[in-house]
């Protein structure tokens, strides 16, 4: 009798271990997928920036500093390696873009240019997509981390090679506020 009870307990433990292992694997894949989503949007933004800079260059030639700052920030962001690194460089890029678009508002010819307007919409759309992809990624990553850290699972999670996922965070308070980039909001 005691043997049967012992056997039942062992079976239950094994089933539980398998279930939590599979749950962790599922979450890890979701985290990886969430990160790819951010990556896709960041790449989109990197591709859009040269178009925008070219479109405004003619009218804003003497704002060379602002334009160079954007291109430099973009080049830096392209070389980012880890989520934390990318988060820092991307938020710098956001800041530079925000300044460019704020300056561009002083040029009526730019403001009424359909091409520029479309690019601005694209850019603010991409900016938002980066933000929402980050939101989704962070939610999933937090769930993944919590699942590893809660008590019984935490005993073997590390031994099985699960590492907590890095969050995509904006560290500096000044960068926290994504600048209002699109003129269309006021139109």
């Amino acid at each position, binding site marked *: 009798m005691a043997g049967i009870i012992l056997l039942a307990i062992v079976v239950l433990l094994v089933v539980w271990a398998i279930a939590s292992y599979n749950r962790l694997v599922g979450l890890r894949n979701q985290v990886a997928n*969430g990160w790819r*989503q951010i990556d896709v*949007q960041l790449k989109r933004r990197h591709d859009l920036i040269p178009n925008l800079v070219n479109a405004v260059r003619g009218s804003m030639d003497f704002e060379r500093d602002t334009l160079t700052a954007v291109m430099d920030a973009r080049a830096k962001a392209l070389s980012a390696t880890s989520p934390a690194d990318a988060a820092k460089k991307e938020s710098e890029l956001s800041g530079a873009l925000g300044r460019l678009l704020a300056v561009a508002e002083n040029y009526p010819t730019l403001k009424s240019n*359909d091409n520029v*307007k*479309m690019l601005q*919409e*694209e850019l*603010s*759309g*991409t900016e*938002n*997509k980066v933000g*929402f*992809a980050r*939101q*989704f990624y962070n939610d*999933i990553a937090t769930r993944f981390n919590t699942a590893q850290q809660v008590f019984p699972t935490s005993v073997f999670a590390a031994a099985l090679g699960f590492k907590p996922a890095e969050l995509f965070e904006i560290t500096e308070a000044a960068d926290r506020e994504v600048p209002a980039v*699109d003129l*269309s*909001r006021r139109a």
Partner: protein
Amino acid sequence: MNIYEQQAANRRRTWLIMIGFVGFLFLLGLGFDVFYIGEAGGYVPVGSILALGVGSVSALAGYYGGDKAVLMATSARPIEDVAAAANEQGKLKLQQLENVVDEMAIAAGLPRPRVYVVPDPDPNAFATGRGPDRSSIAVTQGLLDTLNRDELQGVIAHEMSHVRNLDVRLMTVVAALVGAVALLSDWARRGMVWGGGSRRRDDRDDEGGSGPLALVFFVIWLIAILLAPFIGQLLAMMVSRQREYQADASGAELTRNPLGLASALEKIEGAVEPTRAINRGSAHLCIADPLGRQLNASEGRWSELFASHPPMAARIAALKAMAYQEHP
């Protein structure tokens, strides 16, 4: 209720509605068998079999093709077609719509739904489809013209929540079946007026009626047929109401900006014109009642029963309360 409970409840309700619908038609068929064919020799329940067949087919058609039917009924056009014909200003707005839909799909972690535009000047929007893997979001031209980017985002987030928690599946099936019930009962009523009338005079007079049971069935059947469109309508309204609050809340969770949707609802409320392109059958799918009924504006038991949407003022107040919670 969390998202999984909502999805499970919607799956269950979709089944219940489809089974209920088939059962209801079966009752009509049974009534036909008892009343027209009677207990005469060689009894074959033609009506019951036919009704079961028609019921199952239309339930499945509603499940698999309901979204197409709803989009067709509202004359919604795919955004690509609309964009091809639009001017520069219009193209910009459509691009904005497309971006906002992408943003919300990303925020919800779902595949991107197809986007449609309904050529109607009144601001309104709805979502339809089977679930995240096959869904469509439609907005009216008026919505695009009236709302700014943040407000549009709030509305799309609301619709995306309907997609995510499978409200769209239930609501689309209800829309398709309400349409089917109305159609069938219309046929049956007409069939009874000329078909039934003549038969009774010729065949049944000498039998002297076919017993009290048949009479009871006939009465039930008659009531059911007369009430069918009304019951369907009531059902549609009851399932849609509390969902709107829920979708408002989870939409705000996606955008993290409840005020965007609140101000969109204010603008939609301010537009007094009814949305003509959207008829009674799909009213419960919309973000705001397209018929512009006064009923929806008031609280109370009567409007709670018959209004398809909760009072706009209450929804706006709830959203604003969320905003104040976020910035204490």
